[in-house]
């Protein structure tokens, strides 16, 4: 039973979790840093408690502060959101040790799915195709041998990383020898773990992911796929479903293989399997995210299923309560991440006070944001200010709605990336659905914006 949840996160996801709690009749306490005292989730929550200073290491990343806050406010569960401690098995274990429910996979599941290299091997053994790659690299000699086997160029990746951080493309044995010690020490510094592995470099690919939900009793469903190929420097900025790159048969097969493999491998709770899809439509598993994702609303719009409520119910020990047949993939949904950053100046993050603000609305439009007039966007955290999600029966309809909604969305006081979304919606590659993850980086965001502004 979960009756009172500490939300150990901030921004739009804290608000999203608060909404799920309200819908389920669960009380919600928001844990906030000093910088987030006047944040919308802190103000709307049933209760709010300051857990530390702006520095995340002493607030949102401090396991003792968060657990102490949960105990002090009488909570029986902790929701970590995404980022911060959301996939930290030691934290999940400490939460459990204090008699609290961790909303997410149990510590042992997190541990099992923590190493990217290990998970690739595990899920490959359960039938998922993976990018040709190595196990963990013991030394330079093994690295050179594995790379020769895979064929250059290869991608050198930290096993504990995420979000594209610390990855490096390597073109030759000489380069591999040179970067290996550098990457290792960078990985140690960034993730506290210097394990590295190799993957084949796929030049032109798409990023497609499959959403899954598995209850404690081994009953799992997939919730179809999301296409997250619109990225800037490995950061997703627009996600959609269905993927314009996959056939109906292809997506069904991929989703079914994915859920079968993770259930067999012992996964639990909500999660996402990420795949690279090459030009021929072949999908290769790359990693699993053991948490709710930023782009989860895309799936919610298509299926009508509340993923955060599902997360909570699973963690509380409830059975899933629905079957694969209850998960439709209806129409088309697109999410636009609205970031406080300046596309005209290399996307430098923005902070400041929101002077004017108008949220879009109308049919098929959802806007999840913690922004309000007068809100001081603090400079300490990520730049996500809100998410615009649109739905329509067809992709063309969703694009038209997205365009209409973006024209209503006004944010003044901080610069945002709204212009890049508007540019995307009139760009040929996006409109015809033929693009890969390097679309924005290849053309350059500035050139992209300029092209969109040209008349005609």
């Amino acid at each position, binding site marked *: 039973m979960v009756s009172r949840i500490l939300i150990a996160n901030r921004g739009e996801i804290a608000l999203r979790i608060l909404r799920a709690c309200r819908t389920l009749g669960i009380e919600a306490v928001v844990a906030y840093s000093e910088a987030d005292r*006047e944040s919308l989730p802190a103000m709307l929550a049933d*209760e*709010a*408690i*300051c857990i530390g*200073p702006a520095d995340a290491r002493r*607030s949102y990343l401090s396991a*003792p502060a968060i657990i102490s806050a949960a105990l*002090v406010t009488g909570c029986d569960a902790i929701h970590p959101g995404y980022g911060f401690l959301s996939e930290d098995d030691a934290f999940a274990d400490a939460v459990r040790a204090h008699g609290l429910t961790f909303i997410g996979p149990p510590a042992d599941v997190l541990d099992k799915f923590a190493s990217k290299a290990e998970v690739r091997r595990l899920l490959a053994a359960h039938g998922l195709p993976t990018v040709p790659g190595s196990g963990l690299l013991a030394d330079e000699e093994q690295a050179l041998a594995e790379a020769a086997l895979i064929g250059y160029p290869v991608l050198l990746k930290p096993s504990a990383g995420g979000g594209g951080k610390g990855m490096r493309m390597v073109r030759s044995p000489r380069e591999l020898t040179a970067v290996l010690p550098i990457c290792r020490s960078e990985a140690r510094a960034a993730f506290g773990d210097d394990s590295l592995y190799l993957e084949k470099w796929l030049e032109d690919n798409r990023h497609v992911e499959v959403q899954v939900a598995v209850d404690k009793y081994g009953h799992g469903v997939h919730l179809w796929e999301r296409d997250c190929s619109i990225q800037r420097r490995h950061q997703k900025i627009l996600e959609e479903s269905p993927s314009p790159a996959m056939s109906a048969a292809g997506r069904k097969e991929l989703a079914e293989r994915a859920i079968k493999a993770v259930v067999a491998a012992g996964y639990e709770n909500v999660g996402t399997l990420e795949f690279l899809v090459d030009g021929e439509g072949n999908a290769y598993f790359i990693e699993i995210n053991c948490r709710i994702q930023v782009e989860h609303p895309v799936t919610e719009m298509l299926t009508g299923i509340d993923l955060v409520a599902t997360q909570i119910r699973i963690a509380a020990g409830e059975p899933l309560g629905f079957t694969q047949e209850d998960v439709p993939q209806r129409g088309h949904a697109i999410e636009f991440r609205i970031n406080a950053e300046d596309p005209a100046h290399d996307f430098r993050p923005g902070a400041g006070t929101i002077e004017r603000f108008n949220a879009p609305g109308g049919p098929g439009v959802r806007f999840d944001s913690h922004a309000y007039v*007068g809100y001081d966007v603090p400079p300490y955290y990520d730049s996500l200010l809100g998410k615009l999600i649109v739905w329509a029966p067809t992709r063309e309809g969703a694009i038209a709605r997205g365009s209409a909604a973006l024209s209503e969305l006004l944010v003044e006081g901080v610069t945002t990336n709204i212009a890049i979304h508007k540019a995307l919606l009139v760009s040929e590659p996006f409109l015809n659905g033929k693009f890969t993850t390097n679309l924005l980086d290849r053309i350059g965001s500035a050139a992209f914006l300029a092209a969109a502004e040209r008349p005609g």
Partner: protein
Amino acid sequence: MPPQNQTGDAAAERATVRTSAERAADHAALARLADTLVPALVGKLGAGSLGEIEIREDGWAVRVRRFAPGAGRRASDRVADRPRHAGMPGHTGPHAPHAPAPAPAAEPVATPDGPVQTAALAPVVGVFRPGLTVGARVRAGDRIAVVDLLGIPQDVVAPVDGTLVEILAQAGDGVEYGQAVAVIEAAAPKPAPAADEEN
């Protein structure tokens, strides 16, 4: 539930929903507030990092704050129903410092005609356990009480030399990070508050 604050000077004008007799006097007082004091406050709010300022005149209190919707309960509300120390920084105090601070910082507050008082703040979120009692003389840095963080005591230290004049939390209370839990009164009025003692 406390009355909702309103933003800017319009709040002062809109507050005049009262009975007929009081209205004329109130209106004059409010107009003066709106003309002179409120703009100054608004200016201060815009210039600095303050979130809220309140002034009182002619029986009216006008509070100017940056817009902030909602009215969720704060954890520090839990600390009993006893009145909070007047002018005490802490929960309703300034925004976060612009660089991460090693510990929550208190600012001394001069009471109208009395000595300087400074709050001792909870260093972590946890359970309050008192140590020294009211009346104790302390030096800056002395442990006054502790906050248990998952059973590990964290010192609440005196921010300045002086006398412990009030303890704001009770044994077993949950306290949040930066919450004012005790008040130190400087031993004697100083000629000028030394800047290096404030932190």
